[in-house]
């Protein structure tokens, strides 16, 4: 029986759709359903372009503040221009804060019952999570594009080659990808939207106590150690090196291996939080 028949007659006309497909059809639908969810999120962007402006408001204001207000007073050593130092940090910070968008979107769907509607439908259950992941990475790529254009306008340049620069942006997206699972997990954990919004209190120090705006060596020892081991620092430092910013890098092991750690940290975060997020999603059926 084909699905054609169901649209005959009124809303109750016809009969239910045919029963389960083979494994290859399942894979097809997992991808197709994921894409349907991604399209929905992209439509959100089209419907509310201001969404991007809001989400980028903080990094953009930060760029302007740090470059024009604090920039002249900042000395990160090595005679490096502060814009050159701070821009890669800004990119990394935007990626790091991105998990709050994920958590917010997940909690809204959960609160409104949209997640339950999806779960009561014969769609691929994985698509709810994979769709979120794909659209968040696309969203992050758009964020980076807008930020890079603004950075170019205020005088930032990458001195790395085209490949190194692209690799740097790939590392930034990798960090964002890893944090999607943190966002999904927190979004499923949060009882409501307000509590998800309060996450900023946690996210802010997570983004700031890092090498994003200042070298950890300039911080008190204990704080510097925390900042050095912050995954955001590894990505920021690695990206700086790929852009050939020429900023001096501390001589601790973690700082010397930033490019390696910019890959390892996201993998570790994914390895921990992806299973947590999947388990939490499964627990919705409790």
């Amino acid at each position: 029986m084909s699905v054609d028949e169901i649209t005959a007659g009124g809303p109750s006309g016809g009969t239910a759709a045919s029963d389960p497909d083979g494994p290859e059809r399942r894979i097809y639908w997992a991808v197709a359903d994921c894409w349907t969810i991604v399209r929905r999120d992209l439509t959100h962007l089209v419907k509310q372009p201001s969404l991007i402006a809001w989400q980028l408001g903080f990094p953009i204001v930060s760029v302007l503040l740090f470059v024009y207000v604090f920039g002249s007073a900042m000395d990160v050593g090595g005679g490096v221009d502060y814009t050159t130092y701070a821009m890669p940090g800004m990119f990394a910070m935007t990626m790091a804060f991105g998990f709050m968008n994920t958590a917010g979107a997940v909690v809204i769907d959960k609160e409104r019952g949209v997640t339950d509607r999806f779960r009561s439908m014969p769609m691929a259950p994985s698509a709810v999570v994979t769709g979120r992941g794909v659209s968040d990475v696309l969203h992050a790529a758009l964020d980076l594009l807008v930020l890079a254009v603004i950075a170019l306008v205020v005088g930032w340049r990458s001195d790395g080659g085209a490949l190194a620069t692209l690799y740097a942006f790939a590392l930034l997206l990798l960090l964002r990808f890893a944090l999607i699972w943190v966002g999904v997990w927190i979004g499923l954990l949060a009882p409501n939207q307000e509590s998800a919004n309060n996450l900023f209190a946690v996210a802010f120090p997570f983004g700031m106590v890092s090498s994003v705006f200042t070298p950890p060596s300039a911080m008190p020892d204990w704080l510097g150690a925390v900042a050095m081991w912050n995954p955001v620092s590894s990505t920021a430092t690695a990206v700086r090196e790929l852009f050939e910013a020429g900023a001096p890098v501390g001589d601790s092991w973690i700082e010397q291996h930033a490019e390696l750690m910019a890959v390892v940290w996201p993998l570790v975060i994914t390895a921990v939080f992806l299973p947590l997020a999947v388990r939490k999603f499964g627990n919705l059926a409790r």
Partner: protein
Amino acid sequence: MRTRASDHSVLAEGLRKSYGEKRALDGFDLAVPRGTVYGLLGPNGAGKTTAVRILSTLARLDEGRAWVGGRDVRREPRAVRRRIGLTGQNAAVDEIITARQNLEMFGRLFHLGTARARRRAEELLDWFSLAEVADKQPKGFSGGMRRRLDLAASMILAPEVLFLDEPTTGLDPRGRSEVWQAVRDLAADGTTVLLTTHYLDEADRLSDRLAVIDRGRNVTEDTPSGLKRAIGGDRIEVVAGAAEDIPEIVRAVARVAAEGGEPETDIEELRVHAPVDDRVAALTEAARSLRDAGVAVADIGLRRPTLDEVFLALTGHLAADPADSADPADPATADEAARPAGALDTADEEPGQAGPRSEASV
């Protein structure tokens, strides 16, 4: 079992489900004949939502068996999902994309393919009178419109069973009547509807049959009129202007009371009431005889039993009796307090708010 499963769109036997210590369903049975509107009536926390969540594959059951559309909810959840529509307590639609985009998205997720999803969206927008707002965002909709969009999304695959979990909670009277009309239209079209509600009049107006659920167990199962007969149905109520008029009022009320129904008197509130069969005739007759007798009344009218009274009549306790739950000696009350933190996610209303278990009153 399978033979009964084919006569019934929904069949459940001995459903049990606990959230920690709290038993949300405690051996619940349900049999919804094909093509009927079936009401599941009970106070908050009675287990209605848990039952719907289990039957719509959203929650796992601990014990028991259930078939929806002839398919086992535990073994064939995907097959069940192809046969059901679900409208939960929130209007589960995307607020930002338009009404049409919502229906097209859900259509694609039901695997209709883009062209058919588009056509189906168009049909449903027409059917649910949403064509005029098809290209608007639901965030600007009234409660009733949002619900109708939600219902439309539940009807994409022309489901065999439509679950409506408290579909009119939080709606204004207009929104409520809009939803009622939509449900009646669907029922007339042949869809089996399982409706949960804690409004007696809603259950009365919409359903062909009713099950009353309390504390996760079946209390009774009947037609709305059978249930009303069982609990006394409508009552005439007269409030006296002065206490000395009460004997005369009792005589007048007794003359119009339903067979076997004795007038009851509440001396403190000067209230006399009795069950009636023919509502309007009883009211006019009582009013005339009181006027002829020269008795001035403060108020006279017809009253339907409230849900509290139904519960009092059926279970011997009120839906949510504060005196009961304050009893620290009741071991079940202690259970209520030990609400599992993890249950927050899945069953907002179920644990904690349920009436206390009191052996004496059951």
